[in-house]
């Protein structure tokens, strides 16, 4: 019996290892080949260690501009969608059954709708708006609007559960004790739902940075990092991509480690917290 259990455990370990190998092997290959010194530009032949692709990467003005655009859009989209979404979640939470259902269906719609359809529909909207009202063609403005739109549902869906967990009497109690509504919101409601708000904002930020499909249809000629990566992959061989991937991966790793260390500290303080 004991032997069977150990065999099962070993099988589980091997299986886990194989899945992780599948998930990480391509990334490892990218990272290794970012240090590849190659003149012929073959993607898969090792020609010695070199940092030339990194040098080239950081000299590339277009990439740096794309990076700046991406970060700007992500920050604006995350902040706006968090504020708008949190307020909306409070409103939705207080609604009666039927209007709440309608609002939730509208919220869920962009999440279940194929991204490409959302992108195309927004493109039609912006192109039609330009045709009707004039104004500049697609660019930063349309990108930011599109990003806010697809981030909003994620903010709402991470704030709503926290509102539902909250004791509704708390807010009323604060008011009974003479606290004005706005102050009651900031002193009583917001601290209660803060984990949901923060999660929503982080999600919005990362989704925005990572988005390609919707940006692709709403960007006009403006470059964001994913769009630039796309144009790089269209070229036959460009080891700069590998260097860029490595830099991004390292940044993500660093960010995740910081977040997790913070979470662990939080958990140390309140052991029963849900992630």
């Amino acid at each position, binding site marked *: 019996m004991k032997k069977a259990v150990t065999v099962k455990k070993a099988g*589980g370990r091997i*299986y*886990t290892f194989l*899945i992780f190998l*599948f*998930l990480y092997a391509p*990334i490892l*290959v*990218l990272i290794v*080949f970012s240090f590849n010194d190659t003149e012929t530009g*073959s*993607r*898969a032949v090792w020609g010695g260690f070199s940092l030339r692709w990194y040098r080239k990467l950081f000299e590339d003005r277009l990439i740096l501009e794309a990076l700046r655009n991406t970060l700007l859009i992500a920050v604006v989209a995350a902040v706006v969608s968090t504020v*708008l979404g949190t*307020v*909306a979640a*409070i*409103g939705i*939470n*207080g*609604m009666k059954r039927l209007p709440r259902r309608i*609002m939730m*269906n*509208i919220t*869920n*719609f962009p*999440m*279940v*709708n*194929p*991204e*490409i*359809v*959302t992108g*195309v529909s927004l493109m*039609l*909207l912006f192109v*039609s708006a330009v045709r009707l009202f004039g104004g500049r063609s697609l660019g930063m403005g349309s990108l930011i609007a599109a990003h*806010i*739109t697809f981030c*909003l549902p994620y903010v*709402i869906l991470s704030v709503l559960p926290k509102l539902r967990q909250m004791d*509704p009497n708390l*807010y009323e109690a604060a008011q009974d004790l003479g606290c004005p509504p706005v102050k009651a919101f900031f002193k009583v*409601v917001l601290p209660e739902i803060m984990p949901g708000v923060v999660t929503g904002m982080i999600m919005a930020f*990362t989704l925005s940075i990572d988005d*390609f*499909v919707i940006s692709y*249809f709403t960007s006009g000629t403006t470059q964001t990092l*994913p769009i630039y*990566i*796309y144009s790089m*992959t269209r070229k036959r061989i460009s080891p700069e*991509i590998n260097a*860029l991937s490595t830099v*991004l*991966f390292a940044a*993500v790793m660093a960010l*995740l480690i910081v977040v*997790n260390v913070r979470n662990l500290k939080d958990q140390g303080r309140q052991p029963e917290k849900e992630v």
Partner: protein
Amino acid sequence: MKPNSKLLSAPYTVWMTIFIIVPMLLVGYFAFTDKAGSFTLENILSVGQYSNVFLRSIWLGAVATAISLLLGYPFAMTIARMSAKRQNVMVMLVMLPMWMNFLLRTYAWMTLLEDNGLINNALAAIGLPRVHMINTAGAVVLGMVYNYIPYMILPLYSVLTKIDRSVIEAAQDLGANSAQVFLKVVVPLSMPGVISGVTMVFVPAVSTFIISKMLGGGGNLLIGDLIDMQFLGSAYNPNLGSAVSLVLMVIILICMGIMNQFDDGEVNEKGGMLL
């Protein structure tokens, strides 16, 4: 939080009306009009010419979803049986590749699968014949599984980890063997996770256009590629593109309706159901 709920969600309602509902209406409008703006059914009817593209997309998407489920389920079960601390690490390791842009992840597979790529070089080194892998339907399915399997693993894991151990023990006490426990207790209880996993893999897989472009060469045109061509490609025709998008949406709604039949309606509120 009851007061002013309508007022609080008003900005959100306005935003979603402009950026979700109006664009969708525009898709409908373009799908049923010609270039001059008069009503026509021609676009919808000509979608029929592309039925092979639709069938291919649905088939490849379904195969990728099935593979993800078959690979992901045992993996999620293995994680769910680990200690709480290791579970967190595992979940983070599953999520980490998702933080890398999917264009880069797909690009990495190009390096591996090419005729002169790493896998073929390795095969040649040990004396095996080279295999043509890139630009095949199999490569597209691989790309889909690789990119979307975390969306299968995570919901499965979160459902499996919540299953009450005592329910399983009760089944064992009542004489069920491990196969019976799995089929009669674990699988039914994990159905919500299966449904959301299948949806979260199938929808993006069916509507992808980058994976097929990068790994499928020109011969594996999918619905997404067709839409892309009508809006940003050589065959500029937003009317036809809108019609294709509309049909794609209907297909996905039907698939999700079918999926929801397997569900007891518990995920209704947050599971992303429509209508």
